[in-house]
């Protein structure tokens, strides 16, 4: 509006009657052109920034995604292609033979069921323990709570191999040897500290006023937690659940030490394709590709919750 007023023609000036419209038009045109040039320059700048960002994003995606893509392509290669020197990215000849070999191997289906069982139990155990622990620590802010959360972190600093053998002996002593519950408990020792820390950050992001309002409306402390706080941090719970699930799903060392016939999980079966007498790359990559499908599906299913959970932590303060 102000720009329009500034460029408004002066109808009172008689001398400039004929030339004025031309000059005014020229001035307006020049100004528009300048603005147009500026706008175009800005647009061009934005476009190049966006292009650069897309290139960086694509590069990052390739960097992270390439190992998985290479695994996927290898799973479709013939035996000689898998060991080609120098290696090829795409198969020279596509084959499903590796999938048939891998899935036809004895114990693969059972190991999948064991992996699912173990990961679900471990995830549920982690959440059941981490949610109240994290809530208590963040809401009550006591010294013991702060010590507890630091101590939980310390357990992550111990190499799993150092506790693997004692854990395996303990499970054997209580008769839980070679059961999914034993492995789930072992996996919970890995995921629980991370779950407590994650949930603590999510609870901290929830304003205390919300709970107080719920209390004023007649809710008990537990009722406010259940009816108000938990729904607000549901995205965070989804994120924590995903991390706990993944920690168990991909875990190898404890599974190696604690499982045998009844509860062997798929990571151990995948590793069995590398023997002292050779490495069956094709079958190994085929089974690894199949094993990654449930995790991809789970991530897609909980995508909205995960994004919500991640932004929940980000808005604090």
């Amino acid at each position: 509006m102000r720009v329009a007023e500034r460029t408004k023609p002066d109808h009172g000036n008689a001398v400039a009657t004929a030339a004025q419209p031309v000059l005014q038009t020229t001035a307006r045109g020049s100004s528009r052109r300048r603005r147009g040039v500026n706008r175009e320059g800005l647009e061009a700048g934005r476009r190049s920034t966006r292009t650069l960002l897309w290139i960086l994003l694509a590069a990052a995606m390739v960097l992270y995604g390439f190992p998985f893509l290479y695994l996927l392509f290898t799973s479709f290669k013939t035996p000689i292609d898998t060991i080609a020197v120098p290696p090829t990215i795409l198969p020279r000849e596509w084959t499903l033979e590796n999938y048939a070999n891998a899935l036809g191997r004895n114990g693969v289906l059972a190991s999948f069921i064991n992996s699912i069982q173990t990961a679900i139990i471990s995830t549920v155990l982690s959440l059941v323990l981490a949610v109240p622990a994290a809530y208590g620590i963040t809401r009550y802010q006591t010294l013991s709570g702060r010590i507890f959360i630091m101590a939980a972190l310390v357990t992550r600093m111990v190499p799993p191999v150092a506790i693997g053998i004692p854990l395996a002996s303990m499970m054997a002593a209580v008769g839980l040897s070679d059961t999914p519950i034993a492995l789930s408990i072992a996996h919970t020792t890995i995921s629980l500290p991370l779950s407590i820390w994650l949930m603590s950050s999510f609870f901290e992001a929830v304003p205390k006023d919300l709970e107080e309002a719920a209390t004023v409306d007649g809710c008990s402390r537990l009722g406010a937690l259940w009816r108000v706080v938990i729904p607000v941090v549901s995205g965070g719970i989804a994120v924590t659940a995903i991390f706990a699930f993944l920690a168990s799903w991909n875990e190898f060392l404890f599974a190696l030490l604690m499982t045998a016939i009844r509860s062997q999980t798929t990571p151990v079966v995948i590793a069995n394709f590398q023997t002292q007498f050779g490495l069956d790359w094709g079958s190994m990559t085929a089974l690894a590709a199949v094993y990654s499908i449930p995790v991809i599906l789970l991530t897609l299913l909980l995508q909205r919750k995960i994004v919500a959970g991640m932004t929940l932590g980000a808005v604090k303060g």
Partner: protein
Amino acid sequence: MSSRTTISRITAIGGLSTAVLLAATACGAGGPAATSGSAGTSTVNVLVEAGGHAELTGVAEQCKKETGISANFVELPYDGMFNRLSSEFSSGNVSFDVAALDSVWLPSFKDAVQPIDELFTDEAKKDIFPALVKEANVDGHFIGLPAWTNAEIILYRKDLFEDAKNKADFKTKYGYDLAAPTTWKQYQDISEFFTKDGMYGTDVKGGVETEWLAHVLQAGSPMVLDGDKVVIDNAAHKEALDFYVGLAKSAPSGAAQVDWAAAQNLFNQGKTAMTRFWAHAYRQIPKDSPVAGKVGAAPMIAGSAGVGAVPGPWYLTVPKATKNTDAAKKFVKCAYDYNDKGIESSLGLASRISAFEKYQDKPGYESFKPLIETLNGTATATRPGTEKWQQIVDTVLVPMLQKAVAGGDSATLLADAKKQIEDLLK
């Protein structure tokens, strides 16, 4: 409201799933609740490295028919098996009744397994390769029955060796006929001859120690240790190391990083004309490999002390902690009685001389005669019986070899290695 509904649903589903899963937990999906080590049962749990499982499958089937004893196999990757065995043996509570042990682990677990002297009859001792009979005997008792064994032999490209032009060119250059090498001088010449046009005569494996040690045995010296004395710096070790490193000029570059897998890949891709490799590899050449059907096998080459190699046997052992000793010993006996069943597996190995001889003239088993000759070699010997052996290999021998093939001074490297091994054995 919708969040609350979602949470309620998740909680309900989670709770239900957990209940079902916990109920199902008493028995995982891997099979029946075969209680490990249960007294008097006719099922034995057999712990085996993943590659060896196939070797025992035929044995297990036959054993079930003949004795009624069935086997559940616990397959583990090689890299984790030692830890698993250590864990279970030290806890005194084992989940298996029979364990297949790599020969290098026998000294480490000698106190955790039972003597099985009764299985080593005079007849059995005659039918098992002498080096393996010796190795199975620890502190006066036989503690493991060899289930299958292996040794390095020479694999070579028959098509290249039989090519008329190659034969003529070779004779012109070296003055004798091109054929599978029977002396190390010939091996050197042939390696040099084929190193041209992007191809190499042989490989040099800086990542493994057994080939160099085979040269040491062929020169008539014990490997690394003579009793308690470290002899790694003697003339035989130095000569063997110098010869081994000398082959690098006819081998692909980067020898320091070449291990079994890399060497096998190079040969199967047709990049090397010869390789010294474990005999099982002869039957494992992929059908679509450019060298499939074009490979010949020859025994390991003799030195001044005769043919010498380091065998790679696996022994079946019965843990002291098992409560199912009778069935376990019966299974081990089955593995001896039906030892040839392993030859029909994908790995295709056995431990009895008679089992190898039964197949040696059959098509597809051309590697067996060279393997038998190598395993019967006068200089063939198993690894020193110290529980520190694997540690010596990983921390001293392989790093020393890698430095040697990268150009290090052999005398200095061997002297350093001697000191390190003496420190380890203190």
